[in-house]
């Protein structure tokens, strides 16, 4: 039977069926994508709530009575809270300093069209971070600064400051220049205008940039792996060390993974519109 032989009603019904099938197919695919994206997180949580016996079962145990044992172990035995504090201090300090250095620079790049400077900062983001690490390791070693917050904060600044500058450039470009000129006419200075007019208007951008810089520092592994020590070890390095202790404590690993990731996920929910902008250094607007 060819399409030409169909009555108009039949053709319509067939078209409707085809549309319905497409819709179902599309939904099934979307569900599949989401399931794949979520599965490792789901598995992380399951692992963290299972007993060690269930975790090393040859056939995965899907249903079980959850236990908090792994979390208690990780917190009590492995100083997890100290590592969390270390991560927090370094992330907060590097973000704070990144803002102080980055905000005026971003404003200047936006106002005076300093594209060369913007490009220089972009190159800093493109260059592999490990390039900076050998010289910094030698310098901090000579200065006796290995395993200090100073070493970690300064290197995390390499990650955070370019991010803050690039996000804020596009934000400052959006602040109407008339407002600024009105302030100048009223006799305000450039710094006064920047602090009292521009920055308050840019609060949402500053919040987004700060949270992103914080997340990137929190997630940073390479610099911390080399430059931290017993006194300053941040969570990612501490968790990485878990796996070198011979027998792997699956549940403990899962619990630790959940505890590092959770703060990041919560912060992500707050600024999700900005994540892609941040990851692409402003190449894509949120």
């Amino acid at each position, binding site marked *: 039977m060819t399409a030409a032989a169909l009555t108009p009603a039949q053709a319509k019904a067939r078209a409707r069926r085809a549309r319905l099938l497409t819709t179902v197919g599309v939904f099934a695919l979307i569900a599949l994508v989401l399931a794949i994206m979520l599965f490792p997180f789901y598995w992380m949580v399951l692992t963290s709530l299972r007993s060690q016996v269930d975790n090393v079962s040859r056939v995965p145990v899907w249903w079980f009575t959850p236990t908090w044992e792994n979390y208690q172990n990780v917190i009590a035995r492995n100083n997890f809270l100290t590592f969390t504090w270390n991560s927090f201090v370094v992330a907060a300090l590097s973000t704070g300093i990144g803002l102080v250095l980055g905000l005026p620079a971003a404003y200047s790049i936006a106002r005076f069209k300093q594209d060369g400077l913007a490009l220089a900062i972009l190159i800093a983001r493109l260059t592999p971070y490990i390039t*900076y690490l050998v010289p910094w390791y030698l310098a901090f070693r000579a200065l006796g600064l290995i395993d200090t917050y100073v070493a970690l904060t300064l290197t995390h600044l390499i990650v955070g400051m370019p991010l803050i500058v690039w996000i804020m450039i596009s934000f400052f470009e959006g602040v109407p220049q008339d407002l600024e000129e009105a302030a100048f006419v009223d006799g305000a200075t450039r710094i006064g205008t920047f602090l009292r007019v521009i920055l308050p208007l840019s609060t949402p951008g500053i919040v987004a940039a700060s949270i992103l810089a914080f997340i990137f520092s929190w997630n940073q592994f390479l610099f911390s792996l080399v430059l931290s020590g017993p006194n300053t070890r941040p969570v990612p390095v501490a968790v990485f060390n878990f796996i070198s202790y011979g027998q792997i404590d699956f549940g403990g690993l899962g619990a630790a993974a959940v505890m590092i990731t959770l703060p990041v996920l919560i912060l992500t929910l707050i600024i999700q519109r900005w994540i892609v902008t941040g990851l692409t250094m402003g190449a894509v607007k949120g």
Partner: protein
Amino acid sequence: MKNASTWIDRHARYLFPLPAVLAILVLIVAPVVTNFVLSLYDYFVGGRAYFVGLENYQRGLTDPRVWNGVRNTFYFTFTAVPLQLLLGIGIAVLFNRDFPGKGIARTIILLPMVATPVAIALIWALMFNPSLGVLNYFLETLGLSRSLWVAQGSLAIPSLVLVDTWQWSPMIALILLAAMQGVPTEHYEAARIDGANAWQSFWHITIPGIRSAIVVALILRAVDALKTFDIIYVITEGGPGTASETLNVLAFKTGFQFFHAGYAATLLIFLMFLVLGIAVLLNAIRRRT
């Protein structure tokens, strides 16, 4: 006071960026320059430095382990990135419509790229575990044979590509989705009136409309894939043997396990030129299209 502030105002374009510029000089430019100097020395951390001229470069260019690293770096990058581009386009097309729960769906696909890479890598390492890992359970359930995943040399990089693809396809999708929303709907309507089917309007309207976004996504992803460190180091440490040892991981080991700082600096210069070279090349392609 008045004079000071007018002086500041007059030179604002230099004074505002000055702190950041100084920070960049110290934090970023100085180490790069130091690497060039270090690369001319035979120097182990804590030992004496001997000037050897270009010997480190000569050694690097003839070192089979370096070439293995370069090969692995390219293998990883040029398998992962095209795969992610295809999946990214697919996800973007799927998501470029109204459906219930779209907001939540967009949030979910953000998670792989923001979650702490070390945590992600550890969970994947557990899932890859040949005897206890859940991935082998899935393979068996589907009637396929078990795999050694990262424990087998020839599968180490493909397995890592799988992790990287899971992590980053969504970013490409979100970049392209933003671009797709900028394609005027009138174009689609006009195409429909002219009798174009879904595939034709995808190929002749969507793709040209998002071409520049595709290239931007490719540049960003290629540059980041070339310097991937966290997931490779945590899951395989470059192994088994040197099967997944990229240039990045090799430079790290040279510097911080063998403490051969001079040679590590040389490898880092190779890596830096490789990454920036490819960035410049891709950017030149972008300009031409």
